């Protein structure tokens, strides 16, 4: 466990910072003119743009506008970006290119997770000729697949998603609002419940969503909005009079539940008259065929968006004529699935067009529109993005503020009849068209161009950068990274080994990759074995954007083996208010091993022997060794590091010295005491032995038996090799020589003997040892013969130091083979010398 000082130091060194106060943050806005560099010469009216960002990979973006194929080929282009909108190409994959405008109308959308791109177009070479198209991979630059081909259709507007779970999971659901002008009830939504892979027409069928009588038709825009729970809204103008330039219309919202399956899918929301479709407002005057600035007004301005958090909440926007000459946008909201709507506008914008709504995963609504300001030659088009958490307080970011009279239009379209806004996660993406003069002041939120420009002079440059190019209208893609906190925890926390019963700690870095301050309210654990230490200042912890905070996680192992838990970080991240983090630990114990042979072997009495033994810890945490001892005089621990702690997977050495206090085999218990829970005391028997003794004995020999008749007392001398093999027992090999004087008339008798004796010491611990011995031997009598016999004896031995001993012995020898019996005894004094 780290000491407080170490922890404090690590806090200082870590790339982390604790913000003291909550700082307001602004959204990060990027605005990009998407006309590619190779098209720097172009002067098209690239208006009425649309954009699709792939929800499964926001780096993949497709966009459209009234942009023709630059070489007037048979297919119209879309704009393609695979780097999140930073760079763009034009790829001509849409059939029916008009040399001036590409397509008639075009909108596009990706499936939710499929990556499939869908477009709805009016082909540029015909009149009100609908195509619904599909591209499995929009980057391949191959023509899109035609799914639906129909006439008398107007303004197809695509929305798409992928079913995430439940019935139909994985299938793309595509809803395309269109004005089927073959019917007086013309508001229509073509839908497919599995559009990604099915062959033509990929399950698409048109469903009329108008249930009331009309003045002959509905208005051009029919806009769908999809919620992931299967709720699909649609909005349209029900036209009740058709006298241009002021049509009369109701704004009607329809709803389908359960993805719109069934014969009448958009009948879930009823009006007061009991018919499907709720009138948000009625009897509104909608200009048609007049212009706002240079942009025509064609009753094309509707938008609807559903809150990803709850399909109950839905916003809508429409345009109408409030006074005599205005063109006014209105935003309203329903919190009950479209049944009732806010009685008054949440937002009212005068002299504006191209409303587009989107709601992010935090419930924040975005509203894009283009407003005409000023008068006469000073008129300007201002493109605004308003955002609000509650529909009451709105931010206002000015994306573009461009002259309304330059370029001068030669067509009826200028900015177009729509633009688009969408949200993925908490971020907004959108597109609008505007005059493309590279005057930086015209883009207060910043702008980048791919085409050649000279921002110093505010002029467009040609493809060779050798001349200027006339201003025109370009599509501008924008993205808005919301000032929301975004928690990121780089992986789980593995605390490694911890000793059972002890605490170990590690660091949990909680990082903020968002824009606004991240506020961590608490961190809880699913197991009491893992806890997060509250910071010294307590909760909440405020983490500035692009910084991390190192929380300390403590692991208290209850048992051996792997253990885990889930830590839950509660924060103000709108997408991840509760972030789960896996934490792992492994409970471990010490495990003592005493290694090395405890046998010191043969050690001369003239020197000493040493042996090294190791005290090791093969467990998972440190071993505390209290002592190591050998309680014998012969064995001493000349290197004893204990008490000490042995780290796991390491050893400490003991050195044992054997200095024999007595000859023979010696043994002693080595005892090691530790905190090993299974073997707190380990004993090893130390053993060692001294080499054999060499002894010299000399004394008197007395004949017995038949020998007594021919010999009398003589002298005797023995050389012994004594090898103790037990504390009490020893082998004693004796080579003896005796000379007995001959009795009268008899020669002296010489006796040589070789015998093997077993020697039993009765009191090996006493200062004077009493021993018995017995053995068999061979005897050579001269004169005489070889005989076999045995001897028994006893004696006293007095050790003198550890190298010498004195002995007094008595032995009686008797032959078995001689007849008559030959026998003698010996009384000797001897000196034993240890090797």
């Amino acid at each position, binding site marked *: 466990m780290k000491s407080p000082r170490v922890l404090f130091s690590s806090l200082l060194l870590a790339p982390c910072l604790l913000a003291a106060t909550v700082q307001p943050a602004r959204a990060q806005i990027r605005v990009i003119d998407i006309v590619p560099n190779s098209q720097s*010469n*172009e002067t098209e009216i690239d208006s009425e743009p649309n954009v699709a960002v792939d929800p499964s990979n926001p780096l993949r973006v497709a966009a459209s506008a*009234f942009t023709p194929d630059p070489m007037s080929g048979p297919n119209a282009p879309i704009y393609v970006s695979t780097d999140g909108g930073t760079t763009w*190409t*034009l*790829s001509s994959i849409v059939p029916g290119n008009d040399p*001036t405008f590409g397509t008639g109308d075009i909108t596009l959308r990706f499936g939710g997770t499929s990556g499939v791109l869908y477009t709805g177009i*009016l082909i540029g070479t015909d009149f009100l000729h609908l195509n619904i198209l599909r591209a499995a991979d929009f980057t391949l630059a191959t023509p899109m697949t035609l799914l639906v081909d129909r006439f008398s259709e107007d303004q197809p507007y695509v929305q798409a998603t992928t079913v995430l779970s439940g019935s139909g999971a994985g299938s793309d659901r595509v809803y395309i609002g269109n*004005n089927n002008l073959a019917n007086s009830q013309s508001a229509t939504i073509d839908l497919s419940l599995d559009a990604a892979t099915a062959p033509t027409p990929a399950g698409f069928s048109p469903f009329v969503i108008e249930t009331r009588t009309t003045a*002959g038709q509905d208005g051009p825009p029919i806009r769908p909005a999809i919620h992931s729970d299967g709720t699909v809204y649609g909005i349209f103008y029900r036209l009740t009079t058709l006298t241009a330039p002021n049509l009369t219309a109701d704004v009607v919202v329809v709803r389908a539940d359960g993805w719109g399956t069934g014969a009448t899918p958009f009948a879930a929301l009823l009006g007061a008259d009991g018919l499907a479709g709720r009138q948000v407002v009625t009897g509104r005057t909608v200009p048609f065929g007049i212009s706002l600035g240079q942009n025509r007004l064609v009753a094309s301005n509707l938008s609807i968006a559903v809150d990803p958090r709850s399909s109950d909440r839905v916003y809508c926007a429409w345009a109408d004529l409030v006074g005599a000459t205005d063109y006014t946008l209105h935003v309203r909201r329903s919190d009950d699935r479209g049944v009732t709507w806010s009685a008054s506008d949440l937002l009212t914008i005068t002299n504006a067009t191209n409303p587009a709504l989107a709601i992010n995963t935090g419930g924040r609504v975005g509203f894009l529109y283009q407003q005409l300001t000023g008068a006469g030659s000073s008129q300007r088009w201002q493109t605004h993005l308003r955002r609000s958490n509650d529909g009451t307080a709105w931010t206002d970011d000015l994306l573009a503020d461009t002259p309304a009279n330059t370029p001068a239009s030669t067509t009826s379209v200028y900015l177009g009849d729509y633009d688009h806004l969408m949200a993925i996660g908490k971020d907004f993406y959108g597109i609008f068209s505007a005059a493309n003069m590279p005057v930086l002041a015209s883009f207060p939120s910043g702008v980048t161009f791919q085409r050649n420009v000279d921002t110093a002079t505010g002029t467009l440059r040609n493809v060779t950068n050798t001349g200027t190019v006339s201003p025109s209208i370009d599509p501008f893609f924008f993205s808005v990274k919301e000032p929301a906190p975004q928690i990121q925890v780089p992986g789980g926390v593995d605390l490694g080994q911890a000793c059972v019963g002890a605490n170990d700690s590690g660091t949990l870095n909680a990082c903020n990759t968002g824009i606004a301050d991240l506020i961590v309210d608490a961190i809880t654990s699913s197991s009491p074995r893992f806890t997060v230490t509250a910071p010294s200042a307590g909760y909440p912890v405020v983490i500035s954007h692009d910084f991390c905070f190192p929380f300390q996680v403590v692991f208290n192992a209850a048992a051996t083996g792997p253990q885990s838990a889930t830590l839950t970080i509660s924060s103000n991240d709108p997408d991840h208010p509760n972030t789960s983090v896996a934490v792992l630990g492994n409970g471990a114990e010490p495990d003592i091993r005493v290694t090395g042979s405890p046998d010191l072997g043969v050690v001369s009495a003239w020197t000493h022997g040493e042996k090294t033994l190791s005290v090791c810890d093969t467990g998972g945490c440190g071993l505390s060794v209290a002592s190591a001892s050998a309680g014998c005089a012969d064995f001493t621990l000349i290197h004893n590091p204990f008490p000490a702690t042995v780290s796991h997977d390491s050893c400490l050495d003991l050195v044992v010295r054997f200095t024999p206090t007595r000859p023979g085999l010696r043994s002693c218990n080595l005892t090691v005491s530790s905190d090993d829970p299974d073997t707190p005391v380990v004993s090893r028997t130390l053993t060692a032995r001294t080499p054999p003794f060499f002894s010299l004995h000399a004394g008197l020999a007395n004949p017995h038996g038949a020998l007594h008749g021919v010999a009398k007392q003589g002298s005797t001398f023995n050389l012994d090799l004594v090898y103790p093999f037990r504390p009490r027992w020893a082998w004693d090999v004796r080579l003896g020589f005796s000379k007995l004087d001959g009795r009268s008339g008899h020669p002296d008798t010489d006796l040589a003997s070789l015998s093997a004796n077993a020697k039993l010491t009765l009191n090996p611990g006493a200062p004077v040892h009493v021993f018995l011995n017995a053995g068999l031997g061979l005897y050579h009598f001269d004169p005489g013969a070889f005989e076999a016999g045995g001897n028994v004896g006893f004696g006293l031995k007095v050790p003198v130091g550890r190298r010498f001993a004195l002995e007094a012995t008595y032995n009686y020898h008797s032959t078995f083979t001689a007849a008559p019996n030959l026998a003698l005894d010996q009384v000797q004094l001897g000196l034993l010398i240890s090797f």
Partner: protein
Amino acid sequence: MRKSLPFLCLSVSGLLSSVQVQAQPAGSPNLLEWVRESRFVFQGTVRKLGAANMAAIPASPANAVVNVDQVIVAPEKLGDFTGREITVALLRAESLEAGQRAVFFTVGWIYGETLAVREVGHLDARQDLGALREQIADARRRNDEQDLAGRLAHAELVVVGRLVRIVPVRQEETHLPVTEHDPDLRRALVRVETMLKGQAPPNGLVSFLFANSRDVLWDRSPKPKVGQNAVWILSRDERKGLKLDALTAFDPLDVQPRERQEVLYRLLESPL
């Protein structure tokens, strides 16, 4: 903003002779078809085979990085790509070698920081491109005349005359829906001077509908003016989505300068 398709570098010759050029890799190419189909013709040098110089281009062994040595035909709005390297998707990967020069007939493919085009065909490189330019210009003119001949064949009346009156067309007559793509139909009255095709009405006035709208679907459609003296190629144009039982002039070729009436007469007499 009205867009046209002027082509750079074309010098129209009066030659009507057939074009004989050596094709690569073998056989005689149909230069007329190549010119009709292609939009960007240039002489270039192959820098690298099996490669591309834009990240957005799908990998293929048939791609080649080609330096544009001389532009022969290009859309005016494209600008000058002389000296720049572009990517060409070859018809056959093995048809050219690195370092080889050729005249490429191409159509557009991908437009990014530079161009990627698809090959329609290619010829051996020329030291003198003048003759080839003339052949291409001639083919271009012949293609234009083929298109015009097609309109003439399709026409019910071909009238030389002066437009004397334009009147609005009531919605009750056309039953067209309310749409931003409304053609804003107008009826034009032309006093006939000469009938190149069809019978003149007894009163000497021919009426037809034209689209006055500047909407995207109608911007290229002719916008006649009162007093305009022209050749009017009138047909019952059945744009599939627009069902009108009336003579119309919707196609950009339907109104021709009266100076071209000799050409038109020739095409009517001897269709290509």
